[in-house]
């Protein structure tokens, strides 16, 4: 089942003659349980692609479908509800609320969505425990290491029944061991059925993906498909 479908997405900022075409006719489909990495240089449009996929920004034209619902047909409130329930975001700088504990940060999206406090906290504890942070639930962000803060951000993104995880340079300034840990967590979420899109310029992070999509100047120019690619590119046949 496709969790995310983006069809012929364009995004234009500004007006002629100064308009900037951030995206031009991008198609992207992500199935449940799959991890797709989007790679491209700065200014290639990869972050814009992510904010449009997550309905944080509207495309100039084209259609975004999340869990079978076309975002363009939804009211503002319906879109906000879909964002809270189905979509989780992980940002480069974590974006945790400093005045809230790890547990409060993680359960906040559920509470905002009307889930009772007890149930929301329970789901929050489960998400934190899945990421090895059960002991740190009552700590505040400034009491956590960079790696722990990022894990809290991932817990917040997958808490409850989220089906789509969107991550923009999710390893941020973390070292390579923590970067790998982050990708393992995202893969674990995919094994539970979450569809994930990770935007990165880091080839090692991208290599955790089932598929890597390359974007240049607002267009998808290429992608890796399966492992058999390597054999066929070398002119060999897979044994």
């Amino acid at each position, binding site marked *: 089942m496709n969790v995310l479908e983006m069809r012929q997405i364009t995004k234009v900022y500004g007006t002629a003659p100064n308009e900037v075409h951030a995206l031009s006719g991008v198609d992207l489909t992500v199935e449940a349980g799959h991890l797709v990495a989007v790679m491209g*240089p700065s200014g290639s449009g990869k972050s814009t692609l992510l904010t449009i996929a997550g309905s944080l920004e509207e495309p100039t034209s084209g259609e975004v479908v999340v869990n079978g619902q076309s975002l363009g047909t939804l009211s503002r409130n319906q879109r906000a509800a879909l964002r809270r329930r189905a979509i989780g975001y992980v940002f480069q700088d974590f974006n945790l609320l400093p005045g809230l504990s790890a547990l409060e940060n993680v359960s906040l999206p559920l509470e905002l969505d009307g889930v009772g406090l007890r149930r929301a906290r329970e789901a929050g504890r489960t998400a934190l425990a899945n990421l090895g942070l059960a002991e740190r639930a009552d700590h505040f962000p400034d009491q956590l290491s960079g790696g722990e803060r990022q894990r809290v951000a991932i817990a917040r993104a997958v808490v409850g029944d989220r089906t789509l995880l969107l991550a923009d340079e999710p390893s941020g300034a973390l070292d390579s061991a923590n970067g790998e840990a982050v990708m393992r967590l995202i*893969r674990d979420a995919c094994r539970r059925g979450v569809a994930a899109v990770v935007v990165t310029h*880091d080839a090692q992070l*991208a*290599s*955790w993906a089932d598929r*890597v999509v390359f974007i240049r100047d607002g267009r998808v120019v290429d992608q*890796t498909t399966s*492992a058999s690619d390597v054999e066929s590119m070398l002119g060999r046949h897979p044994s």
Partner: protein
Amino acid sequence: MSVRHALLALLSDGAKYGLQLRNEFEARTGEVWPLNVGQVYQTLARLERDGLVAVDDAGAEGPQRLYRMTRAGRRELEEWLVTPPDLSAPPRDELVMKVLVATEIDGVDVRAMIQTHRRYLISVMQQWTKVKEDESALDLHLALAVDAELFRLEALVRWLDAAEGRLKRSKPTRRASEARPAGREREPQR
């Protein structure tokens, strides 16, 4: 990879047979560097000649020969471990060559060519990453070998990214052969 020193390292915890050394070598390098048994015996013969390993039962043959490391072998191994490999000269990297050559040939879409190589490198990296995905089945040697390979391939991807950026910034018609400073048309005298 120095097979010679790898074999000495394997002998550091006791005497071993040739076949056993081959199997341990492959296991410890995560089977990233396959080694044929003939190569093992050839290397052992050289090590024996140089006095770095010894066989107690001189009459034993082939697979029956039990090798142990000598004191000189131990010293050789210890010295090898702390001697940096010579990385001062750049390797003759085929990928680098291809990109350099492509910039000299009219009608070649260098950007598209770079993307083909980038896609290939990332596909290979995806395969290596799959190897280390199951952490419970990952032994330390395999993890270290896979990491080394991933960092090596990543460096090539980063070089391609940098090359693409550099080509974009440079004038499209400018070629190495045309880029000599004025007045330097002749080869400098030696």
